């Protein structure tokens, strides 16, 4: 007999995602991803000055502030066909890269590592042997037996106190937890170090953006940073070298710790390369703009259909009609008046019903690309990079596959990436690529300034009549696009199509499920009241519901509620 499991909410952060699965014979047979609150934030922007929009959009979500600010200024610039000075592009790129390093580190360690790492086995770990193992896998200097002993002692203290503190939410002792105690100890030690290293990445954002979490330096047309190498009050060499020094601290943590930990965890759970593929149509947009017209990018993007890299079709820029015309939002199963519209015509008119398995069941709209559901995120980004033969993506992807293969002692090819673990591996690959790009962008900025170019801003001029603009950004959770219609210099319509709406999208008018829903099918579930396996697959997407539905639950659901019917 099948069992229905409801998990609400599922993120460890402010999450408002609800997942329902029907389990039969130990496997998921049907799945629904839904969101439980509506806010209608886009309406707030109507009637405002387009130059102010980014300050509002950066408050959509507390976790991804910077990405919404950037997509917004790009949309306004695009509507005016503006060029952005090179310095401004490089400064924005450095902010994007630092933010992404921070975000990916936090996602893996603080939000999802505990799906795989059982902290409660650590009292059985041997810090000396764990240190030898860690040092054989990585040149990282933070793996001494003394450091690992200290972490073990802390965890023993926590276990003895009967309160697991920050680890109280985990499914400890679950049969699906399989890492040896020594590996759990290493991973937990890095979980703690991650809190320190992600901080350095945030400091970079603060130096360049003026402040974090809400950067102050963006404006349609460029950035507000004044550059004068001889002035204390501006972006000068001293500040640029502070940024470099911080990257030099964060990058080894990404490439020697995070990257290796993902490979090590993956090699102990090889069956998870077989679950969670779901939708294998992938969408990623190019980013890290290299010219003033935003037509050349350091990271390629495009589409891949049916998991076949040979179908790769590049997206060349924000004006590429392939992307601009391809996107629509299907609201057949969402709590909105059914209106399957392009974002420029997009409406946000609520029509709430109860949760109906075969009717409307979510506040998330269903974005579709040429009528198809698409998976977005680091996996889409990495697969497009591989298909485009991007050298950095190829280098880090091959290194990930060979590291996993060496630990697991078997050959592993790129086909394993279409999976739950593949999404984690792709995030670590992308993060390592972005770490390399950060140093390149830093050098480009310094070289351009020392050539004597200090321009950071072009003045936007709004014409009479109506213009439309689209700004995209390949954010940590995937393709983000803001769509703005401006009439006589005032915002007429505004729609944000965010990464989590692509991935958490509901079924569409044809009944085709979205990526979360499809990825859960055939997932094993050993214990219906502890559906760890469902959570593994959902967390692998890095859900961020607070911006997907722009929502807030006044009752403040505080922990995952698991109901088994």
């Amino acid at each position: 007999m099948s069992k229905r499991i409801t998990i609400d909410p599922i993120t460890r952060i402010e999450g408002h995602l609800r997942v329902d699965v029907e389990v039969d014979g130990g496997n998921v047979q049907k799945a629904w991803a839904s969101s439980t609150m509506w806010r209608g934030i886009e309406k707030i922007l109507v009637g405002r000055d387009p130059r102010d929009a980014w300050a509002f959009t950066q408050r959509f979500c507390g976790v991804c502030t910077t990405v919404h600010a950037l997509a917004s200024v790009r949309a306004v610039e695009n509507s005016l066909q503006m060029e952005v000075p090179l310095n401004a592009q490089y400064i924005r790129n450095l902010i994007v890269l630092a933010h992404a390093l921070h975000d990916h580190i936090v996602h893996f360690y603080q939000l999802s590592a505990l799906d795989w790492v059982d902290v409660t086995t650590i009292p059985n770990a041997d810090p000396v042997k764990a240190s030898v193992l860690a040092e054989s896998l990585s040149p990282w200097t933070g793996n001494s037996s003394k450091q690992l002993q200290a972490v073990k002692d802390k965890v023993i203290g926590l276990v003895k106190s009967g309160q697991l503190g920050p680890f109280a939410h985990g499914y400890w002792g679950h049969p699906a937890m399989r890492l040896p105690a020594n590996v759990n100890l290493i991973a937990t030690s890095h979980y703690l170090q991650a809190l320190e290293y992600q901080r350095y990445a945030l400091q970079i954002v603060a130096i360049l953006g003026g402040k974090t979490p809400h950067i102050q330096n963006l404006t349609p047309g460029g950035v507000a940073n004044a550059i004068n190498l001889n002035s204390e009050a501006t972006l000068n060499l001293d500040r640029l070298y502070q940024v470099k020094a911080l990257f030099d601290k964060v990058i080894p943590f990404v490439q020697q710790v995070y990257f290796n930990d993902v490979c090590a965890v993956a090699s102990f759970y090889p069956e998870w390369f077989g679950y969670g593929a779901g939708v294998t149509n992938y969408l990623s947009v190019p980013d890290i703009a290299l010219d003033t017209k935003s037509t050349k990018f350091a990271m390629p993007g495009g589409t891949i259909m049916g998991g076949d890299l040979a179908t790769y079709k590049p997206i060349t820029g924000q004006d590429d009609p392939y992307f601009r015309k391809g996107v629509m939002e299907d609201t057949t199963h969402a709590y909105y008046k059914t209106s399957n519209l392009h974002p420029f015509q997009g409406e946000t008119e609520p029509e709430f019903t109860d949760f109906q398995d075969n009717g409307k069941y979510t506040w998330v709209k269903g974005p579709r690309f040429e009528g198809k559901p698409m998976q977005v995120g680091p996996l889409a980004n990495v697969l497009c990079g591989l298909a485009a033969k991007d050298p950095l993506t190829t280098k880090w992807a091959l290194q990930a596959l060979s590291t996993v293969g060496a630990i697991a002692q078997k050959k592993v090819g790129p086909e394993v990436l279409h999976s739950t673990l593949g999404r984690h591996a792709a995030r670590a690959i992308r993060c390592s690529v972005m770490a390399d790009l950060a140093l390149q962008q830093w050098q480009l900025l310094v070289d351009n300034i020392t050539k004597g170019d200090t321009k950071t801003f072009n003045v936007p001029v709004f014409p009479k009549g109506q213009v439309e603009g689209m700004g995209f950004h390949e954010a940590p959770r995937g393709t983000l696009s803001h769509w703005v219609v401006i009439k006589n210099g005032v915002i007429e319509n505004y729609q944000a199509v965010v990464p989590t709406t692509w991935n958490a999208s509901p079924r569409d008018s044809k009944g085709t499920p979205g990526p979360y829903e499809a990825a859960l099918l055939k997932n094993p579930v050993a214990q219906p009241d502890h559906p760890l396996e469902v959570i593994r697959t959902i967390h692998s997407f890095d859900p961020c519901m607070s911006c997907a539905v722009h929502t807030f639950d006044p009752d403040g659901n505080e922990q995952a509620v698991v109901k088994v019917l």
Partner: protein
Amino acid sequence: MTRIGVLGIGNVLIGDDAVGPSVVNLLDALWEFPEGVVVDDLGTPSLDLAARLSDFDTVLFVDAVSSKAAPGSIRVYSRDEILKNPPGLRLSPHDPSLKETLLTVDFLGTGPKEICLIGVVPESTTGLGMSEAVKDAIPHAAQAVLTELERLDVVPKPRKTPKTTKPFWTTAAPTAH
């Protein structure tokens, strides 16, 4: 020197959830604080809060709190009350991150020693704009922060030229549709 953070938490676009940022905005607009005191609007930082907490020995949070009390009521919670109450009490809409973050920095041994939450009970948590009850509570919540600071021997000076007390999220769209 004791490092003190006065940190406003909340999403400024969701009704009364804007109260935390609005209170710190008002404090910053009217008062100059001595060195070592940081008054900041953190929005909804979730787990990123951990990275900020190690900067401080003492933190005063200002946030909307779910409570049965009347909208606009001000409630002050100590660290033990934040951490010891059973989860069902719902101290704050951001509680999962606040509580989890405090436990995490505790475990690391890097967190602030003293924590206090100045909470304002919301009425409406949809749409842009705060309810009248909560708007009226903003100066009182700011006063509650000043009282806590006084207890910590922090005496701010009134600004000679106040900054704007109207942050961007309180401005109406200039063109109505």
